[in-house]
């Protein structure tokens, strides 16, 4: 698990949550996924090509996805609907773009596909590479009661 591939995603997630959602995220322990499936209920997926190739998947549980939509858009969704799915796709796009900027600062140039969003749990995903999938959990508060949700940032790059 090369830290040079992890740090850009960590910095990107922190920057995007801070600027666009106005909240801090705290990264939990990175781990290697045993299955090549989505980690949450709503997942944005982008392929990466260029100096490296791979895939990044950004996944939320339903409650977290709704929170992201409500905060980004200023409206209230009661359930995961098409607008919420769109919002996760856009957040995936923004985090990926920010991460690619960090990669570029380290001399690694990458381009990304338009994000695809899948809805469902443990959806089998082709991460393109044969390497293990690294999963970075990011925890964030969703209300004043101390309730937390998690964003899973899963990637495999070679």
């Amino acid at each position: 698990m090369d830290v040079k591939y992890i740090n850009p995603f960590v910095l990107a997630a922190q920057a995007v949550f801070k600027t666009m959602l106005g909240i801090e995220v705290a990264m939990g322990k990175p781990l290697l996924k045993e299955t090549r499936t989505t980690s949450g209920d709503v997942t944005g997926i982008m392929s990466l090509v260029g100096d490296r190739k791979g895939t990044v998947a950004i996944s939320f549980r339903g409650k977290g996805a709704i929170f992201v939509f409500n905060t980004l858009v200023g409206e209230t969704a009661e359930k995961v609907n098409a607008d919420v799915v769109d919002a996760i796709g856009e957040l995936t796009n923004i985090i990926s773009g920010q991460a690619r900027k960090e990669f570029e600062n380290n001399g690694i140039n990458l381009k990304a596909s338009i994000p695809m969003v899948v809805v469902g749990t443990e959806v089998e995903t082709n991460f393109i590479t044969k390497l293990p999938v690294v999963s970075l959990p990011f925890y964030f508060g969703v209300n004043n009661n101390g309730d937390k949700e998690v964003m899973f940032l899963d990637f495999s790059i070679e």
Partner: protein
Amino acid sequence: MKVLIVDDFATMRKIVRNVLRQINIENVIEAENGKHALGMLDKEAFDLIISDWIMPEMTGIDFLKACKEDEEKKRIPFIMVTAEAQKESVLEAIKAGVDNYIVKPFTPDKLREVIGKTMVKFGRQM
């Protein structure tokens, strides 16, 4: 101030609208792609265009070029919003005549700053 937001993702248009609301810009019209936006620009007056970069049917760059080639539309300040922070994308937009750009993620204050600087270039205020 009347702003035209151009983006193929409805949710992204709502996100930008939400950010504009936070800096007291409420008069916002949306277009879902460059072609649709050009039609709206023919019918209504706008003070500012905020456009996405990557869109189907007509890309942000092609929409920008179409505006800058038109005697009336080129007088409207044009800001590109992009998640593409890579230098070649920014250079391409500058060569095509973009008045300013902002890279996602951005805060309301950052958007206000970029809009303010863009309007000053045109001798106008927010």
